[in-house]
């Protein structure tokens, strides 16, 4: 499926120092691109709430994806926290 990248996701990558983690994200994108449906991607889970939004856990980080017309928008890649409001 097609993958697109938001400016928020791009900014999150700028703050990522761990090279191995970058490789893991790279691999996750490969997997999403190769999938015909997002639900085929390993470790993915749909978030409750408004809109078809999903998350993939990659170690201590969360890859947030919005699905629209079979396009996966990678929105954020953020470290787990107890207060996500501060990350907006």
């Amino acid at each position, binding site marked *: 499926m097609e993958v697109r*990248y938001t*400016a928020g*996701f791009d900014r999150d*990558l700028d703050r990522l120092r761990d090279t191995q983690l970058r490789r893991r994200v790279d691999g996750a994108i490969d997997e999403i691109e190769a999938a015909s449906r997002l639900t085929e991607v390993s470790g993915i889970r749909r978030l409750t709430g408004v809109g078809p939004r999903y998350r993939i856990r990659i170690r201590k980080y969360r890859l947030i994806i919005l699905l629209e017309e079979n396009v996966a928008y990678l929105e954020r890649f953020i*470290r787990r926290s107890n*207060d996500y409001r501060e990350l907006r």
Partner: protein
Amino acid sequence: MVDSKASVERSVIEKVRSRVSLNVNGGDSLGEAGCVSAIRSCTLARWLASHGEAMPMPALSAKEARDLALLVEEMAADKAADPDADTLHLEAAIDDLMYDHYGLTEEEDTLIERSLGLIFQTDEEEDEALARMMDGMGPYDPEDLVSEEIIRAKLRAVDGG
């Protein structure tokens, strides 16, 4: 459940105790005074203190020491430029470096951060918070997007560039 938690806690403490540590003045070999301070104030150190254990001064590999020094330098530069600068991502990277040095599993570092209240207590709570955070975001216009070429270059950069 309690037994399981206690077992994970014991495992963390055992891993920290079993790794080679530097002597009391050994922090000097880390080169940068800020590195010693960063180690003493990392999340693992705070968790150990809450369990009556002192954070040892770890005998880092050359790469770990170099990575730590870079993070400490970047944090100092950010704070010098703006005392209110957000350096949470750098502090998190130092935490991860310490977890990795001691070979902690995801279950172990999750327990540490949950017990200090740094992350949600359950996956469900976390997912609900993520959904709330993202509510209202999107759809995205073309000008909100970044090319795959730029993203892949960042992900495949050799040294985090």
